[in-house]
């Protein structure tokens, strides 16, 4: 450890391809405290390492994996790894988190983060063994899905290795390809395409070095208390039914994106609801490493062996978003996305854009079409395969809805449902003002995990008719809370377990690191991480025009029109202390 701080190693590992030269780099104590870890640390390294104008799929774009002080300490749900890079989908910051054993293995390498730049000469397997880096040929792994890739790597190296891998989508540069580990995906913003561009089919990690914590006995007691609380009614939804429980309720209150966000309720919602899936398809439940919630529910498919996981976001994107009410088809589609290694939200959102093109009489045959109609489940399933293989119309849709609409034109940009190139998640923001603002200003693009302001909209804490300043404050609080949790790498499904997240997190942070930090310090650090993301985006070409919503959500009879959104953004920037001008965001 390069400092007196506990809970971290105080250094990161720089890896340069094609030679896989590795060098340990220090993380000063002050930096460690300022960025916390996880998403904050990954963002800081990206900010330092990614040059302006770097081609996201070029050698200069770094691919960063970061651990956190909490990982490996016994704090429930904290076994997460944060990944950051310049997104090939948005051109802005791309970051994504994934849970489970890989995060623990990464923490044991003796480094708080690894950053990979350059490109391998041939398809390779990278091994990181207690900081020793090697490349091995991986041609035999090409074409395998992420899970089969991990199995093959562990069969070759040993079961103590943990593996991050890409599927066919990452190999072929689908711009929303994901990195997978332990059956989970770092799903959003195309991190898998970046890994594929470096010709890394898989990264295997093994280690034996965990940093000491500052107060082991105190931490053990605090961690036990948090574990006990994690089993209470605040997390029952996730434990009992999983995130799929959102769907029927969202449809009932009019916020379930349906047919490419043309509506907020779906007539087929009952058939594909979480409750119906539980009754008719439920198989079992899984938990990530070191998690006591266990939110991952698996379902049986009729006429197919095995089971598949299904989250609400996949359920909406591949279901109501595409007008599909066949639960088996949706389960099969979710399984296909996992097998190909790609983000189901962007895949479904881009297919929904193509379906609307067909509805509006735009012939996509010149791009390999025709597009399927809304509700055509077999065609959607076939199209997912085409996207993964970049074949036929799938080659266009592999670029995402923004780029596809730009290529096709004919006004189709109007129904490309994205912010900054990232397809919208499953919260129709037409009636959710804080969420609408959060989606518009989020540095990552339209994302429910970086701006979970829907929690404020869907609660008794926020008057839906409140003035702009109140809505902006709620959006900022949600954004900062997400930055804090992603940097501590604790699961957001814990958020209702805390009475005062920053203060309680600060207690845990002190016990782990020995840093004399309080809740205010963590709040300030989180706000600084949000500002750093924006400054990174400014460097990559962000302008105020990027902070908006798709026209469909602002025009006509939309609940939030453009002037109203502008007022919300102005209030947001005023409270952040920013001005709406590129290059003006101050370092926090």
């Amino acid at each position: 450890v390069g400092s007196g701080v506990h809970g971290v190693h105080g250094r990161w590992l720089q890896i340069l391809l094609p030679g896989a030269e590795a060098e340990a780099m220090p993380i000063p104590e002050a930096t460690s405290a300022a960025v916390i870890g996880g998403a904050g640390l990954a963002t800081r390294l990206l900010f330092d390492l990614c040059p302006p104008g770097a081609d996201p799929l070029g050698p200069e774009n770094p691919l960063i994996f970061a651990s956190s002080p909490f990982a490996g300490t016994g704090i429930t749900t904290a076994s997460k790894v944060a990944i950051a890079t310049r997104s090939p989908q948005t051109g802005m910051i791309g970051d994504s988190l994934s849970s489970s054993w890989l995060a623990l293995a990464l923490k044991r390498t003796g480094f708080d983060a690894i950053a990979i730049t350059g490109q391998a000469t041939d398809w390779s397997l990278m091994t990181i063994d207690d900081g020793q880096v090697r490349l091995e040929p991986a041609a035999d792994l090409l074409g395998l899905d992420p899970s089969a890739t991990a199995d093959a790597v562990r069969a070759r190296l040993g079961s103590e290795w943990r593996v991050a891998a890409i599927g066919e989508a990452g190999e072929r540069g689908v711009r929303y390809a994901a990195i997978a580990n332990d059956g989970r995906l770092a799903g959003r913003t195309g991190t898998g395409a970046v890994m594929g561009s470096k010709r890394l089919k898989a990264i295997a990690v093994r280690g034996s070095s965990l940093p000491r914590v500052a107060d082991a006995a105190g931490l053990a007691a605090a961690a036990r208390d948090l574990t006990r609380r994690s089993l209470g009614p605040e997390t029952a939804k996730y434990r009992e039914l999983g995130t799929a429980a959102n769907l029927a309720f969202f449809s009932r209150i009019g916020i379930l994106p349906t047919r490419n966000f043309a509506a907020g309720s779906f007539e087929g919602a009952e058939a594909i609801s979480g409750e119906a899936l539980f009754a008719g398809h439920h198989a079992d439940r899984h938990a990530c490493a070191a998690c006591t919630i266990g939110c991952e529910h698996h379902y049986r498919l009729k006429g197919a062996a095995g089971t598949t996981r299904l989250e609400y976001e996949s359920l909406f994107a591949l279901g109501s978003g595409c007008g599909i009410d066949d639960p088996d088809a949706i389960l099969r589609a979710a399984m296909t996305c996992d097998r190909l290694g790609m983000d189901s939200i962007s895949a479904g959102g881009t297919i929904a854009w193509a379906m609307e093109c067909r509805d509006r009489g735009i012939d996509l045959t010149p791009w390999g079409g025709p597009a399927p109609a809304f509700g055509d489940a077999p065609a959607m399933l076939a199209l997912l395969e085409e996207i993964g293989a970049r074949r036929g119309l799938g080659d266009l849709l592999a670029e995402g809805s923004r780029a596809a609409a730009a290529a096709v034109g004919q006004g189709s940009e109007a129904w490309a449902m994205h912010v900054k190139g990232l397809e919208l998640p499953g919260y129709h923001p037409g009636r959710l003002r804080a969420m609408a603002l959060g989606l518009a200003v989020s540095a990552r693009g339209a994302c429910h995990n970086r701006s979970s302001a829907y929690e404020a909209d869907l609660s008794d804490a926020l008057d839906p008719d409140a003035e702009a300043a109140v809505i902006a404050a709620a959006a900022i609080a949600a954004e900062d809370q997400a930055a804090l949790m992603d940097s501590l790498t604790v699961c957001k499904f814990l958020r209702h377990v805390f009475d005062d997240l920053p203060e309680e997190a600060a207690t845990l942070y002190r016990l782990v690191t020995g840093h004399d930090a309080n809740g205010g310090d963590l709040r300030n650090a989180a706000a600084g991480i949000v500002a750093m993301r924006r400054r990174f985006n400014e460097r990559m070409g962000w302008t105020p025009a990027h902070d908006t919503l798709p026209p469909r959500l602002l025009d006509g009879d939309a609940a939030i029109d453009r002037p109203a959104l502008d007022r919300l953004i102005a209030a947001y920037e005023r409270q952040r202390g920013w001005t709406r001008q590129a290059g003006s965001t101050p370092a926090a």
Partner: protein
Amino acid sequence: MTSCIAAAASSLAISSPVASSPVTSLTYSSHMNGHCAEALPSIVIECFGVPRVLAGARVEACGGTLGDLAGDLAKRAPVLSGPVLGPDGWVLPGYVFVVDGRFTRDPHTLLGPESAVLLVASAAGG
């Protein structure tokens, strides 16, 4: 971990949550054979998530305020007591009502015969 759904399912057939789910119709002598006392509105509570799996898509109960309604719900759908409703008959911290489109945990919320009342988990993450 003990699943409240699994535990309840051993004594309760899990209802299939379809739009045509019949209203849970339980009768208790203390509630005038299922009818509401005079001047108390009868309200169909639409349940979602765990409450729905346990008690069905819709449960009819009586109450002039949300607190009274929740208390009556506990008697009419006792399977909710423990996983969703506390010993005092009020919803546990993980749950919230939506009354006429407004999220609320205020037991003093006034209800009328036309009130639309939903019961759902307060965590909306997905």
